[in-house]
Structure formats: structure tokens, C-alpha cells
């Protein structure tokens, strides 16, 4: 059963006691009695599968007001993993972003059965694009846009690379949008379900965009590598795809890896295989429409191209010839990111 099929009153009750949801390879028990947080969970996790209360659960997390004065006076929220509190409390209205950050923390510090990268992952035609990028690079904006234009979302934040199978495993959770990209994605993808912005976090305003239902339903299906793309938002720049040497690509992935120091040579080998089986690019952009066109061509699904594989080869050949691939002119005005 999916969360939205549960009566909201019952869902809230279960959330207060510990609601179990399947999220990619993990089962998470979410417990919270904060009404604003429940509402966000019901919206953002609507298509996640509700799991029975007996059986195994990977992480038991609890978001709750402190049991002291701060429950009422300048109220706060705490994040607890099984009674352990890894963070200082935040203002109560940050509860949902805190839950998301907390879940990222649980996974990136513990799920070492994967090589974990700070990267967005999407899939088209059975192949994934892995986009490692620092904050402010426009990664999440690009990710949200692609997720609403024919690419299957695997993850906005954490790429889970199987150590032995070399596959990318979905962790289809809400996409975190910041500041201007919130309005941008609202305009670009009117069908996107975007939560109430939280105005004053350390990252500025944050709003979450719910993962599309089809992507959540496919979250048990991993995909093989296809592309590594290093996105960078540059104001007013035309969309530009340029080749990224493989040695550099692997260094970028190591930089983005949370648990490289744990996996070491095995991690190096896994990231090397990922890069070996991917086409690697840098990507500079300012207009989402231009970006979509380039990604369509990457995936070989551009309407103008003859066949998928040919289009892909064409992009590669062009890239190698010019060192730079210019985007076709933007089809629609506006949509500057992020």
C-alpha cells in the first residue's frame, strides 16, 4: 500500500508511533508528533510503500520537540536515531528539512555496503547519468527538471553504487530545492509537487519537490552507468557540454564520495569501473530548456535524431571534434536556473 492510500488521520496516528516506509533499499521508521512535519511527509512521501510494523527496519528516526522549555518558547525540533542525537536542535519549522538531512546522514555514515557519492542520479533508456556537484552548482535544479521531463529519478542527493554489481541503486526521496530554484521549478514543471518553503535555513530558503510517482514505484530497480556529468550553473551562459577526461572524472567522483576512506582500493576500483563504462562531460548551463535539449541528445532521444545510438555517437564525435558542444537555441524563453 502507498502512503496516499492510507486515511490521513490514520497515517498521522501511525507517524506518531513510527510509520515504516520503504525508500529504495532501506526501510525507515519515521516517528514524529509535529503536525507540520506530518503534513510534509504525507505530501512528499505519498507514493512510498508503507511497510508492516513487524519485520526489520534499517533506521528508526524520531523528530520531536525537546522535553524542556524549548517545546514552547522559541520551539525547536530534535533529530534522533535510536535515541542518539547527532545534531544540535533546529527551529521547529525546520523539522522537515532536518528529517531529510538526518536521513541523508544515517545513510551516508552507515550504509557502507555501497560506495556513496554526493550526486544526483537519473536514468533514461536503462542508463544512468551521475551528477556529482558541490552546493550551488545547480545540480538539484537540473535534477528536478530532468525528473519531470522523461528521466527517471534515482536520487537527488546520494548516489548508491553497488560495490560488486557496479549498478546504481535508487533512493528516490524528495528533491531539495533552494532559493530561486523553487520558483523556477514551479514555472518549469507545473505538475511538480513542491512543499512549503522553509525561509531561513543555513542554505537560505529550502523547499522539497516530491519525487514523481512512477520513479518511486520503480525504486527497487537499479540501472547501469551511462554518463558522468559535472553540472555547473553559470549566469547567462549558453548550455555547453564539454568532454571531461576520465582521469579527472574519477578524481571528481572520489571528491564527492562520502565513504572513500572506508572502501579505499575497492572504492577506487568501483569508481574506475563507473567512469570506464560512462561518457564523461562537464556541463555549463543557465537555461533549463537548453539543458533539457542537450540531455535529450545525450540519451539519444532527441526528436531530430535518427536513432538513439547514433545521436549519442554524434554528440560524442562532435564533442571530440570541437572540444565543445553548443546547445541548439532555446526552444522557450525564460527558465534561468537556479
Amino acid at each position, binding site marked *: 500500500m502507498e502512503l496516499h492510500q492510507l486515511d490521513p488521520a490514520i497515517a498521522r496516528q501511525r507517524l506518531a508511533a513510527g510509520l515504516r516506509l520503504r525508500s529504495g533499499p532501506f*526501510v525507515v521508521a519515521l516517528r514524529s508528533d509535529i503536525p507540520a512535519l506530518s503534513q510534509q511527509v504525507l505530501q512528499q512521501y505519498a507514493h512510498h510503500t508503507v511497510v508492516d510494523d*513487524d*519485520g*526489520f*527496519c*534499517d533506521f*528508526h528516526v524520531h523528530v520531536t520537540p525537546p522535553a524542556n522549555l524549548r517545546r514552547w518558547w522559541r520551539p525547536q525540533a530534535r*533529530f534522533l536515531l*535510536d*535515541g*542518539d*542525537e*547527532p*545534531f*544540535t536542535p*533546529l527551529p521547529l519549522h525546520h523539522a522537515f*528539512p*532536518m528529517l*531529510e*538531512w*538526518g536521513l*541523508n*546522514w544515517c545513510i*551516508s555514515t*552507515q*550504509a*557502507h*555496503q555501497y560506495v556513496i557519492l*554526493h550526486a544526483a542520479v537519473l536514468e533514461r533508456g536503462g542508463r544512468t547519468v551521475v551528477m556529482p556537484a*558541490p*552546493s550551488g552548482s545547480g545540480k*538539484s535544479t537540473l535534477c528536478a527538471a530532468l525528473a519531470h521531463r522523461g528521466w527517471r529519478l534515482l536520487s537527488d*542527493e*546520494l548516489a548508491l553504487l553497488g560495490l560488486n554489481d557496479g549498478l546504481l541503486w535508487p533512493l528516490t526521496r524528495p528533491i*531539495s530545492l*533552494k532559493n530561486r530554484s523553487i520558483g523556477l521549478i514551479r514555472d518549469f514543471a507545473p505538475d511538480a509537487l513542491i512543499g512549503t518553503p522553509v525561509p531561513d*535555513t*543555513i*542554505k537560505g530558503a*529550502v523547499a522539497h519537490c516530491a519525487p514523481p510517482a512512477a520513479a518511486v514505484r520503480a525504486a527497487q530497480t537499479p540501472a547501469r552507468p551511462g554518463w558522468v556529468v559535472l553540472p555547473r550553473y553559470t549566469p547567462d551562459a549558453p548550455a555547453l557540454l564539454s568532454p571531461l577526461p576520465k582521469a579527472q572524472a574519477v578524481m571528481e567522483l572520489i571528491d564527492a564520495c*562520502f*565513504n572513500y*576512506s*572506508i*572502501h*579505499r582500493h575497492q572504492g577506487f576500483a568501483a569508481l574506475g569501473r563507473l567512469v570506464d563504462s560512462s561518457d564523461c562531460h562537464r556541463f555549463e548551463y543557465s537555461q533549463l530548456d537548453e539543458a533539457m535539449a542537450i540531455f535529450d541528445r545525450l540519451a539519444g532521444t532527441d526528436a531530430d535524431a535518427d536513432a538513439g545510438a547514433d545521436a549519442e555517437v554524434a554528440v560524442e564525435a562532435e564533442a571530440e571534434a570541437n572540444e565543445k558542444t553548443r546547445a541548439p537555441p532555446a526552444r522557450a524563453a525564460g527558465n534561468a536556473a537556479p
Partner: protein
Amino acid sequence: MTRHRTAPLLAVLREPGLMARLSLTQWDLLVRQARTAGLLGRLHALALGAGVAAQLPAAPAAHLAAAHRMAAAQADEARREVALVWQALHGLAVPVVLLKGAAYLMTGLPPADGRSFTDIDILVPKTALVEAESALLFHGWLTTHHNAYDQRYYREWMHELPPMLHRQRGTVLDLHHGILPETSRLRPSAEKLIAAARPLGSEPLLQVLAPADMVLHSMVHLLHNEEMGRGLRDLSDLDLLLRHFAGTPGFWDQLVARAAELGLERVLYYGLNEGQALLHTPVPPGTLQAVALHAPPPPLRRLMHELWQHALGPQHASATDAFTPLALGAVVLRAHWLRMPAGLLFRHMLVKGWRRLTEKGQQSPEAAAPQV
């Protein structure tokens, strides 16, 4: 009767083979209890040892293996760190004795497998302490705790210097000259410990404590600790050491004799009895009889037993009761009481209490979580 007597974590530490027969609901609780106790990696090692690792359900087994993988990476770092410490200190031509985790690791003792490392502990003769500190400073370790009170606390009253932090690698080293504070009621002789220590390998002066001393130090660490959060992990270390050395001829007699020599008879009494009660550590009846002579009088004995059972058992909410926080507070207070004379303790508590009110620890979630 405390709730934790039925905790799955205690059950599998006593009998690791049980892991092959747990339901998923039991696994749910076991992984939670083990995570809180810092024992996930050890469970993986125990499952391997019992030959049941391949029979575990995939989801919980992934947590055990992931923690074990992390511990293995830390162990490799610790091995490298030991080599670098030795590189810094070998020129002094004094014994350098590895303690606790580093000793288990370098001698391949069972508690090392799956155990997480936070720092390296070494013991040197007190007469060589100043030289050892200078050599370490010269090789890139920096002293921490710069305020005057902390410096005095460590240098005058404690048995170790303030933790030293390597300026490039960020690793932490605790340089000891004893195993209990200078101000402590009990003063086991560090000279005797060093005299009986054994070479680790081809370097005669890079050493580990003799088996009986290693066990006694593990007990001292367990029972006189000012921080009790990881009591069960330390008790499990002790349990594995005892199970390992139990087969060595004469070990138990040496243990009793050595405790008497070092003035640690009461420590040995508690260590063996509480280990036996919580983890079913096998102890020969003769040894138990011998240490029983050093038990406290019956009312105190019963009280202490209750306190230890609560303080050393699993600390996950599913295994504690209303008495647990009180027991933890009591054993920490006891540890402090035994570490310092009353006047000094009062003063130390005032300083620490004031700091707790005025300083902040922890990180904000934005800083700790992936960049979002």
C-alpha cells in the same frame, strides 16, 4: 529483575550461533541495540567466527558487514599509526607499551576484529614521559586542552597527558605513564606492568602487556571509567580476552596472583562476576572462590551488582528501565570518587559543571549532513 536480561544483544554475545535463528523482528531490535552499544562490527566478526555469517537475513547482515568494513578501515589506519608512533619514539630506547585497542589489534586478539578505533593509547615509563612528549611534538603531534586548568588536571593529577592530535593526519594519541590517576585510591604500579610487558614482534621495546595484566587493565578501564556510554563494548572486549586466554595453562592462577600483586583484587572480583552475569564469561569455580574473598560485604555487594548490571548492560531504550540512569550516575560518581580525594573531586566537579553550562558541543545538521 531488569528488562535487559532478555535483550537479544546479550543473548547473541553469549551465544553468537543464535544469530542464525532470529526472526526479522528480533533482528530489528538486535541491530538497534548493537548500534547504540557500538557493537555492530563485532557481531559480524562473531557471526563469522560461529560460521553463521552466510545464514543471516540480508538486510540486517548488511548493517553488520558495513560496520565491520568501517572498523577494518580504522584498523588499517591504526596499524599505520602504531608504526609512525614507533618511528617517533624508538630512538628513546625505552619500552613503549601499546594499550587497549592498539594492543588487541597488533597481537591479533579476538576483541580487535570489528572493533572501532578512535585513538591509540600507549604507556611509557614515567621517567621517560617528558622525552616521549618532546619526540612526539617533534614528529607532528600537538598537545590539546590548552587552558591552564586542563593542563594542570592532566599533568599533575592524571595518569596520561592531554590527548595529542597529529597536525597532518588528525589522529589522536593518548600518552600514559600509568593506568589509574596519580590521585587515585588504587595505585597499581606502572613499573611492574612495564617490567612484565612482552615484545610485540622483532622490536624488543615495542611491547604489549602480559596477558594477566592486559585483562586487569581492561577491567580497570571498564570499572573506573568516568564515561560509561560504551560499558557493554568494553565488557565484551573483556569477555573475549578471557575466553581467549582461558586455554593458556596457568592463566587463571596468574590472574589472581597478579591482581593481588597490583592491589586490584576488588577490580578482579567485579570484572569476573559481572562478565559472568551479563555475558556468561566462563570462569573456573576455583577462581571465582578465590576472588570472592575480596567481595564487598553482602548489602554493598548486592547494591553494586545491581548498579553494574544496569550500567554495563545494553543502553538502548528497549533494554533500560527507570533505574538505569541512576545506576549510570552512581558508577560514574564512584569512578570519580576513587580517582581523586574528596576536596579535589569537589573542585573538579565545579569546573566541569561550569563548563557544561557555558560551552557547546555537537554539530548543526546542515554542517554534518551532505551539502544540500
